[in-house]
């Protein structure tokens, strides 16, 4: 499907995907496992599909789009404690519709993933809920996204964010330092040569601060966060089996988002967005950006690339991306890898990496 979110979503969607795929015979007679990762390549009867040249309306578009099958609110953050230790943080809410609005009371499934990554540990937890009863949902104005006791709430200039698990919890404040940015063609993000696409925008300019509650104690942290919004109905082509998604913040103030969708024929489809410090963006089509694994690591019984060579020649980017904790495996219903990274080479900085489809 589209950028990282998708694959992240894939990850999350993985869980969804499993539900979707298993339910497919009942709900989508044509859907099978072969249709892309986590059912993201499934048919879309009755759902809306993203169209080129979108116009976004805020705050409405921060809310849920029930005419689309899949949607997420996806936040990742690179954090630092007072002693200089690096941490990663994730807060994600996925929405998945079993039927378009208006049909069979449009059951919505919600799935939340939260994680904290330290150099030595990776804490992860998951929540599932059905829509319509108040256990989970998203309201656009005033904006609140929630599942159980987890919330992401505020006016997008400032957001409060919490999550909890049996072994960890966090409470964070986010403050926007720049504008929303739109990927692809003004937010219409193409995911495959066949034209699959999603709507995709981000707020990559959050300052974040708060407290991590970990088994090793309470840790005050600060850093920067990146919030992705994406929705679609069939974001992946049926021959796309996973993706590798990079969101990098360079020390010179520039930011970069790139994803690589793996196909069953061994080829891949790439897309990238360059974000200048003032928020102006440059979109790059398939092939402009490349990412090659340099080193794999065995975690959760699979070999995961945890060191990458990432290149965007048009912007003279040639960097090595290194996982801070190679074991940042998301052992959720649909598992995937997601964790903080450091960047060295032509540019230095930090960021987040998501990888799905590594079975």
């Amino acid at each position, binding site marked *: 499907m589209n950028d990282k979110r998708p694959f992240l979503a894939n990850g999350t969607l993985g869980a969804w995907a499993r539900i979707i795929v298993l339910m497919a015979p009942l709900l989508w007679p044509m859907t099978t496992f072969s249709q892309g990762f986590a059912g993201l390549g499934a048919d879309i009867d009755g759902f809306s599909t993203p169209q080129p040249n979108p116009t976004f309306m805020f705050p409405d578009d921060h809310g849920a789009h029930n005419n689309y099958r899949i949607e997420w609110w996806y936040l990742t953050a690179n954090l630092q404690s007072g002693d200089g230790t690096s941490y990663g943080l994730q807060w994600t809410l996925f929405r998945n519709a079993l039927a378009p609005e208006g049909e069979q009371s449009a059951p919505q499934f919600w799935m939340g993933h939260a994680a904290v990554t330290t150099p030595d540990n990776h804490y992860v937890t998951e929540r599932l809920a059905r829509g319509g009863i108040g256990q989970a949902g998203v309201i656009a104005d005033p904006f609140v996204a929630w599942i159980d006791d987890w919330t992401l709430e505020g006016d997008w200039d400032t957001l409060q964010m919490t999550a909890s698990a*049996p072994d960890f919890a966090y409470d964070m404040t986010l403050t926007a330092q720049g504008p929303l940015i739109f990927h692809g063609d003004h937010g219409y993000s193409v995911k495959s040569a066949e034209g699959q696409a999603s709507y995709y925008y981000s707020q990559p300019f959050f300052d974040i601060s708060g407290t991590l509650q970990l088994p090793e104690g309470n840790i005050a942290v600060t850093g920067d966060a990146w919030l992705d919004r994406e929705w679609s109905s069939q974001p992946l082509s049926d021959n796309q089996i996973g993706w590798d998604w990079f969101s990098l913040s360079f020390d010179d103030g520039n930011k970069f988002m790139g994803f690589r969708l793996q196909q069953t024929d061994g080829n891949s489809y790439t897309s990238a967005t360059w974000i200048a410090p003032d928020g102006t963006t440059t979109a790059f089509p398939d092939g402009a950006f490349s990412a090659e694994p340099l080193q794999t690591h065995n975690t959760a019984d699979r070999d995961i690339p945890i060191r990458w060579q990432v290149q965007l020649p048009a912007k003279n980017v040639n960097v090595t991306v290194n996982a801070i904790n190679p074991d940042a495996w998301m052992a959720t219903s649909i598992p995937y890898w997601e964790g903080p990274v450091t960047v060295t080479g032509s540019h230095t900085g930090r960021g987040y990496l998501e990888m799905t489809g590594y079975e």
Partner: protein
Amino acid sequence: MTGATLQALLSHWWRNPLQLFTLLAGLALATALWSGVQAVNAEARASYDAAAATLGEGQYDRLQRRDGQPMDQSTFVQLRRAGWLVSPVVQGRLDDVRIIGIDPLTAPGGIGPVNLGQGGNISGFFTDTLFANADVAARLPELTVRITPETAPGSAITDIGVAQGLLGKEGQIDSLIILPRQPINRPDLADIAPELTRQQAQGGSDIGRLTDSFHLNLTAFGLLSFAVGIFIVNGAIGLAFEQRRPVVRTLRALGLPLRRLVILMAAELMFFALIAGVVGVALGYIIAALLLPDVAATLRGLYGSDVSGTLQLRPAWWLSGLAVALGGTALAASGALYKLSKMPLLAAAQPRALAMVAGRNAKVQGIAAIFLLMTSGILMITASGLIGGFTLLGALLIGAALALPLILDRILAVTSALAKSVTAQWFWADTRQQLPGLSLALMALLLAMAANVGVSTMVSSFRLTFTDFLDQRLASELYISTETAAQTAALITYATPRVEAILPIQSVDTEIAGQPTQVFGARDNRTYRENWTFLQSSADPWDTTFAGETILINEQLARRADLQVGDTVQLLDAAFTVAGVYGDYGNPIGQALINEPIFLTLYPDVTAQRFGLRLDPAAVPDFVASMEAETGIAASQTINQSGIKAISLQIFERTFTVTTALNILTLAVAGFAILMSLLTLATMRVPQLAPAWAMGMTRAQLGKLELLRAVLLAVLTAVIALPLGLALAWALLAVVNVAAFGWELPMYLFPMDYARLGVFALLAAALAALWPARRLARTPPADLLKVFSNER
């Protein structure tokens, strides 16, 4: 050579088709008995496990409203939003099927047929599909049911939204499962939903415990059947080998290597075992299928737990049935083959030789028997725990079985010495000589009888105890539940002039000596004094208890907290002396009883909503009829005690049907073993009988003596089986049951039952001996004469 040898070996069976039949039939019957009991047990267990898994019974703590009413769905959302990981459950009945609605998204793994975390089959959830076994599906023809055999019998599982709709409980939830791992920073329950109360997970509900007790009984029976089966298999093979010794001698004399002979004979036996095993498993299946409806009904009625009345072919038990047949054959054959390989080449098929060899083995056997019996003696005093209990059972049974031939031998030696006439002396000596050949069959009879005595004692004791218990607990003629305080007041106004006594049933869940305990406040009434029996008590437990000085506790609490009569326990700020310990069968937790006024002082918030009424049983229908009009309490809120008792007793009758059927089968198998042994011995005995005949005894006399001998041996065996069976019952009731469930079943004796059983055993033995005796009586004189012209 191999072909020729096989032909020679097999020709024995063609010439003795009856013997082949007895071997196969014996093996098949033993296998059938074993696998039948196993099948019933496995089926009942599987059903119960499925039910337990469906509800997560005993696995998870739950939240429920204090008043037991359903809660609003918003309470669930409120708790989730506060950080409590809970999962909703709604339940109800639809056309006699229990409908269980769960939320697969929040339910812990292992509940119902859904297991999200492991990618289980979730399809169909969130639609109107129900999951149930085929039996239930047939009862819900209008609904979409996906057949999942692992679903608990009598239940259908579906998404909570669907269940709410089906049950007319829109927006309602009956209980919330609390997931074992909760997030940190979770607020107190009292701050979010003070109307809810947390029910602790129990290591099995009371239903589970009682059902387990029943399963344990069946398991014990299965174990005994197995032992009987093994002895029979052993006997059948040992005898077949004895008979073929001349063939073996001839074959070996012709130059057949011993090794090849042994391999061929082993292969031949395994082949037979396989056939018999398959037939036996099939027979066992039939036995189980016949018994299962009764077992299912027993469990459902007794404990309210549903067991599917249909049988599924479970690989575990038919494989175990085949394994018994093959293993038993292997065990028996190894002994026989070993003997064969060690016996002198030309040793003739002499029964006396067999007896002499047996004599040498007797010493080893005797030492083993004494050791095992001593072990069981020690275990009777020291055994605690299930393993101890079953070790005791095993040591006792095997020890007694091994000791049997030695004891019989001693008895016969004495009677032989006491005999005056020549005929009598010959009879005793001849009986003694036959003992080794018959000993395995007699051991089987011993075990079968002991098992019957043990199991019927256990079951009957269980019934007596339980009916006593029902009398004690259901002493009032009528029980009434009220729903509101107004109803309670109306009931008291209405009932006071019409009944002899109103006994409120009021209790509070608390702890005594660290054990979870339900404390009742009882009103002073003759009902208690007349009907309650104590396992242990002071001189006047009721006087002191109703005076408010003492407390009565159940056996479970007494055992767990190690409390005796005379010990002191604390309830809030009041201290009580224990005045009595009473049996409280099937209750998993502690229970205690104190005087009502004291109870109300200690727990002023508790109000009784259940009442027992004492009145003339004949007046009950009129009382109930006019009560509804005057108080608004519906007849459905009343329970007529005699009805409950009738149902309970009916259920026990079913238990007896099962037990009796198994008893008769075991005896039949033992009788078969005797028949087989006697038939086999008959031909070998001709050389020994010929001299007696030659000296003037008629064939009819000889036949009568044969019959007498069989009956006599059976009587002796029965006499030994009785104490063994009683010891067995005692071990089951006092050791195994306590270890498994924390309460002891009192043991009662049933002499009439034992006498009847003894008669059955004698009949079985006599019937088994009848045909061999008749054949003997009709042995052509020529055959007897031939003995003298033969090699001997």
